[in-house]
């Protein structure tokens, strides 16, 4: 009963956070709202007996991915709503229309189905999750790690500072090795 109440509160927070995030003009504020939403999602995951996903949601999503967004916004100085182009109200119309249709249809489909039996399975221990991950989906792990490697190489290549013009005196163009962005 308590858990149910907590779930509804969290769902409300997640929805509110997400809505505010996409309507906010200011990117940094939007990211803060989204992080709030992600936190409540993490707790929902925890309630759904997936502590590992919950913790990774915080470590990876809130702790790494969103921080990366923040980093890029801060570094490129994009946090000026007056300079950035925020959508005109007319641009919201097709978005609202299409999302509305989709949401209504989806809700109709879900509700029209008979309610599935709500069993209460035991929580899966982390050991079991890990065993599944590395023994049965080992190939997928390898593929994901390869993809991460490619992303790393790609990001390194894209982020590399363009070679400085040769007219500068030599002392000024010495860049720290292996670092794309000089801070």
């Amino acid at each position, binding site marked *: 009963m308590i858990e149910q109440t907590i779930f509804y509160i969290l769902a409300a927070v997640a929805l509110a956070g997400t809505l505010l995030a996409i309507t906010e003009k200011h990117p*940094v504020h939007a990211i803060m709202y989204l992080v709030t939403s992600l936190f409540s999602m993490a707790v929902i995951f925890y309630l759904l007996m997936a502590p590992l996903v919950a913790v990774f949601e915080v470590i990876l999503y809130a702790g790494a991915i969103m*921080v990366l967004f923040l980093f890029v916004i*801060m570094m490129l100085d994009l946090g000026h709503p007056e300079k950035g182009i925020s959508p005109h109200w007319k641009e919201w119309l097709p978005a609202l229309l299409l999302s509305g249709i989709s949401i209504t249809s989806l809700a109709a489909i879900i509700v029209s189905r008979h309610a599935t039996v709500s069993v209460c399975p035991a929580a899966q221990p982390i050991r079991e999750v890990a065993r599944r991950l590395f023994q049965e989906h080992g190939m997928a792990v390898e593929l994901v790690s390869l993809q991460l490697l490619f992303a790393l190489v790609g990001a390194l290549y894209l982020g590399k500072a363009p070679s400085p013009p040769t007219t500068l005196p030599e002392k000024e163009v010495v860049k720290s090795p292996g670092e794309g962005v000089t801070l």
Partner: protein
Amino acid sequence: MTAFSLDITLFAIKLALVFFVILTLAAYLVFAERRILAWVQDRKGPNRVGPFGLLQPLADLIKLLTKEDVIPGAADRWLFYLAPAMAAIPAILIFSVIPFGAPLTIFGRNLPLVVADLNVGLLFFLSLSSIAVYGVAIGGWASNSKYALLGGIRGLAQLISYELSMGLSLVPIVMLSRSFNMADIVAAQATIPFIVYQPLAFIIFMLSITAECKRIPFDLPEAEGELVAGFHTEYSGMRFGLFFVGEYINIIVLGGLAATFFLGGWHGPLLPPTVWFSFKTLAVAFFFIWMRGTLPRLRYDQLMHLGWKVLTPLALVNILITGWWLALK
């Protein structure tokens, strides 16, 4: 009194005690740092307020509370208010998963000396320490000042870089203890602390947590020689105090974690467990202060080089070696 309400009462007492001890310790750590740094520099340090200067933290607190609360005109108000809290709160929360003593038995109730015995305690710590980045980044950004912004960006890059080596250095611990649970990790070190098996991981962990709590030689985000005070340049009064005390809570908490992961937690001969735990924690904190008195600050590229090209590969090699060793055993 029913068993349930007794449990609740005991829990509340435990919580209050932990809060009180942590905050007091943090305040006194500031004092200890000032005294020890003074000794390193052949000075005496603050010794005026109260006997041996012991009331100095109180005086500092009163000073900070009564200061004018200045908010820069161009600051982003809400984020500016939010940032100090985001720096301090995760640090305190981490302590909730650290077992600081052997389980007690009071009124026939079993009372584990840890606030929340999560089965993913180690990951909980990692997640909270990754949240702590926001305090620095938002604080630096919301101030709308170039020094603060630079400090914030530096802090961001530094923290997410060292997070990686910190997490990787803990993997051998999980491999050895076969659990994410802090209590299990401590129990696995009942006879021999993990530092004996994992000296390399310990070194990596120590370096990484030094960078995580932004202390010398990794204090680039607040490098006062270059950036005035880095990300908290524009803060004053109690907001600054929150940043400040957050940093020292962080030291205590990370010291406790180092003790838990590598130094055998509350295990130790003769003395009661909690005393052993605080001794180890304070020893790590002392080492932090000693390091601040000794080492110069790194350059930014050296910092990144150390994190990505030295510590992270070393931690990976360490994991491999541990795996081999376990497979052979």
